[in-house]
């Protein structure tokens, strides 16, 4: 109790010192403290390189230095770099998953860790997924073993507007700030369809209860955000008088309207997506990607025209009605669409702690389905579904997502073609630091949560000499009356 009072006093003093520090938004109240560890140069020699920019470079060397891809070519001089012989192996950009709930719906999944949906109101633009991230989620490490170097952690889809998502580097950390992708924009998670109307209408007896209620909800929120933004923009212009009151939710939405927060929207049905593209147009924001979008193939042309990515599963379907029309060729068809504005942007996403470990296999399934349907897709093209395209949807394409000189040294060396069930990520570098070495799994620290899981096994050797019968003596006789009367054979 005393401690609690003291803490309050300190807070009050601090507040008094700087008349009203929280009156205006800080540039970034939760700045990244991520720093890649010092690492020496690495020369990956003789790999098959899928660059992410539609090219395949056979028998090619890639030099990683100072956290960047320093050079790409044939017979590069090692110059003191650690040399990795990669003949017969594939080098790709690090895999980027644009849709993850690692850390916010971690393993183990119990009430105490269930932090992904602030399902208390249909619009909760004020919450940030990062404040729910538990960095000890064992799923991060498992994802790293699948070649995941960057991921976007999003709030769930219970709400029309679920809050801010965040882009992180997949590195071991104690605080999430140590994982934050430097200078990556936050996102706004929005959701179409059955989830919000089920959570609020069906289960909560309140709006939205219908598809039209959903759309009214987005529009009402952005109408408010537009005036909030105007008020603040006017004040920022002149800085005259008292600053307007802050509203954390409207602040997020105003940042969407300014283009500083990128919209990532959960939508399954084609008609819902078409509606949302109109809503976005009405209020002047851009939807960077539709997530899940099992019917994206029905509007592939519209997505290409509006340059909206489809972040998709290879084959999930049927768990609810809006997921009923899924087809295995969804990703390939979104990819194949063409428009005056550019080509279709297809992304393979997971939304799943198991799927994220094998995103390459999911891409392989989508690729194979597309080819069987007659679409010409090369391996070097399809790798972009896992790398360059998600980087584009997250606005980090200048920094990562391709193997090009000057880009971050986020790369994966695979045991073979990444489009095979048998292939494993052998080595994973993030900003030039080796973060996974399959041959030396013990070199990487386990999540704190997993520590001690095998404490008995570690000690068991000491007891190996004790005869097994000794344990039986300790078990009391079961009284006859309570004993099962089993007369089975």
């Amino acid at each position, binding site marked *: 109790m005393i401690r609690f009072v003291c803490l309050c006093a300190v807070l009050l003093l601090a507040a008094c010192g700087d008349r009203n520090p929280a009156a205006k938004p800080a540039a970034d109240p939760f700045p990244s403290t991520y720093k890649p560890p010092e690492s020496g140069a690495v020369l990956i020699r003789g790999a098959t390189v899928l660059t992410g920019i539609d090219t395949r470079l056979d028998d090619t060397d890639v030099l990683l230095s100072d956290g960047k891809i320093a050079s790409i070519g044939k017979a590069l001089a090692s110059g003191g770099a650690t040399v990795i012989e990669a003949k017969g192996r594939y080098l790709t950009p690090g895999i980027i998953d644009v849709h993850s709930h690692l850390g916010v719906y971690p393993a183990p999944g119990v009430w105490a860790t269930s932090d992904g949906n602030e399902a208390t109101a249909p619009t909760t633009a004020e919450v940030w997924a990062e404040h729910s991230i538990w960095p000890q989620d064992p799923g991060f490490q498992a994802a790293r073993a699948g070649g995941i170097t960057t991921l976007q952690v999003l709030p769930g889809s219970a709400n029309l507007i679920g809050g801010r998502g965040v882009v992180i580097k997949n590195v071991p950390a104690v605080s999430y700030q140590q994982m934050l992708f430097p200078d990556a924009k936050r996102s706004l998670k929005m959701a179409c369809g059955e989830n919000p109307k089920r959570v609020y209408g069906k289960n909560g007896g309140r709006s939205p209860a219908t598809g039209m209620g959903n759309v009214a909800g987005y529009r009402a929120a952005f109408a408010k955000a537009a005036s909030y933004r105007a008020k603040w923009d006017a004040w920022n212009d002149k800085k005259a008088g008292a600053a307007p009151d802050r509203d954390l939710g409207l602040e997020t939405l105003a940042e969407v309207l300014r283009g500083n927060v990128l919209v990532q929207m959960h939508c399954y049905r084609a008609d819902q997506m078409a509606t949302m593209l109109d809503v976005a147009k009405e209020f002047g924001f851009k939807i960077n990607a539709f997530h899940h979008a099992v019917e994206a193939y029905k509007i592939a042309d519209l997505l290409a025209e509006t340059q909206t990515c489809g972040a998709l599963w290879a*084959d999930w379907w*049927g768990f609810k009605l809006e997921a009923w029309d899924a087809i295995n060729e969804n990703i390939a068809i979104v990819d194949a669409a063409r428009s005056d504005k550019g080509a279709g942007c297809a992304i393979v996403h997971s939304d799943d702690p198991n799927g994220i470990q094998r995103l390459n296999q999911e891409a392989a399934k989508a690729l194979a389905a597309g080819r069987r349907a007659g679409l010409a897709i090369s391996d070097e093209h399809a790798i972009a579904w896992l790398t360059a395209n998600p980087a584009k949807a997250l606005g980090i394409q200048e920094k990562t997502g391709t193997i090009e000189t000057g880009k971050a040294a986020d790369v994966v060396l695979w045991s073979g073609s990444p489009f095979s069930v048998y292939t494993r990520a052998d080595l994973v570098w993030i900003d030039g630091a080796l973060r996974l070495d399959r041959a030396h799994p013990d070199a990487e620290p386990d999540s704190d949560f997993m520590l001690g899981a095998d404490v008995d096994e570690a000690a068991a050797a000491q007891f190996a000499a004790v005869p097994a019968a000794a344990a039986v003596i300790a078990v009391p006789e079961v009284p006859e009356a309570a004993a099962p009367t089993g007369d089975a054979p």
Partner: protein
Amino acid sequence: MIRRHLLTGVVIALLATRAEAELFAIRNAVVHTGGRAGTLTGATVVVRNGRIEAVGTDVLIPEGVTPIEAHGRPLTPGIIVAHSHLGLKEIDGVEETNDVASEQKRYSAGLDVADALNPRSALLPVNRIDGVTRAMSAPDAKKGGSLIAGQGAIISLAGSLAEGGNWIVKPRAAMFAALGEQGREIAGSRPAAFAAMREALEEARSGGLRLGDGLNGDAQLSPLDVEALKRVLNREMPMVLQVERASDILAALKLADDYGLQLIVSGGAEAHRVAAELASRSVPVLIDPSRNLPAHFETLHVRPDAPAVLAKAGVKFAFIDSDDKGSHNARNLRQLAGIAVANGMRHDDALAAITLKPAEILGLSNVLGSIEPGKIADLVLWDRDPLEVTSAPDRVWIEGREMPMVSRQTLLRDRYLKRLKAPPAK
């Protein structure tokens, strides 16, 4: 032994109803027989009246038969899903179509899913064109509902295309129930779930009288429950228990010991920790080889190389998909088998874990699960390695009938591919 023959007799009876004589042959295939012959290159398979007549490299094509040329592609037995809800649910989120779990009673042992199975489920074509030919369709235990969920049935994914419409190959094929976390969710605690299970079995054994002298309270089981559980007690039907944690598996083994149950462990995340106990009782395990995260406290010690540990200890296992209980994407069972290979398992063993092993565990192996003379011709001809994620079946036969390679999904694909502005570059 006699009982086992009675069970498979159901399958044999189906064949007797076959009207027309059908004869065909597949030549030049790499035949993964799954039997003693192993894998045969350049082999021929002859099928007559839905049964495999001959398999081998020196088999003659019967006179008048134009063989199907396999061009050296792999031919495998059809995939068998040992735990699914196929035919029992269409869309999880549309409750009108979802009959997986009873929500009314603690005990639904008398429930028989065969009464509700739908042969025209859209899930059947989606999965059979990807090589799945048979499945156990099982009821689930559920919070607020049944601890003993009821009786599952073995179905043919031919569905309404099955010979004579007989697609329910073996009704009342296994009893399903839960202990562990799921059991405690229903009964209130782990020991309460265990006690509830004992109560039910005792009551069934006494012919419907409650544990003790029958005066301590009303019977909890209906006559149908009693009848069904008696079949479990008589080992006419296995009991599939959903258990994960090592200690819960041991509890299940104790229950099996005490009541002489023919136990099958489903889930078994920590089965590798009690492999010796499982092996000594010949209790098989239905396991997902891709799981490696402690998604629940009861699966803290799950590990992807568990199948190897089980195999070494002599535990029989088949692969299941723990996420979706192998329903909408039962077709991905072969991906799980491929993942097991990537984790060090032999290819033949991984293929067996989705064909012959589930057949053995479900008591079907004298008619299904391998490509051997006398067995039912559930065959899949693949374009390449069936465990690879980029492969797909060219052709699928169930009981010798060639299945159309069409599903609602392929029809949607064809409709929208035509509308795409960028034409396919063939």
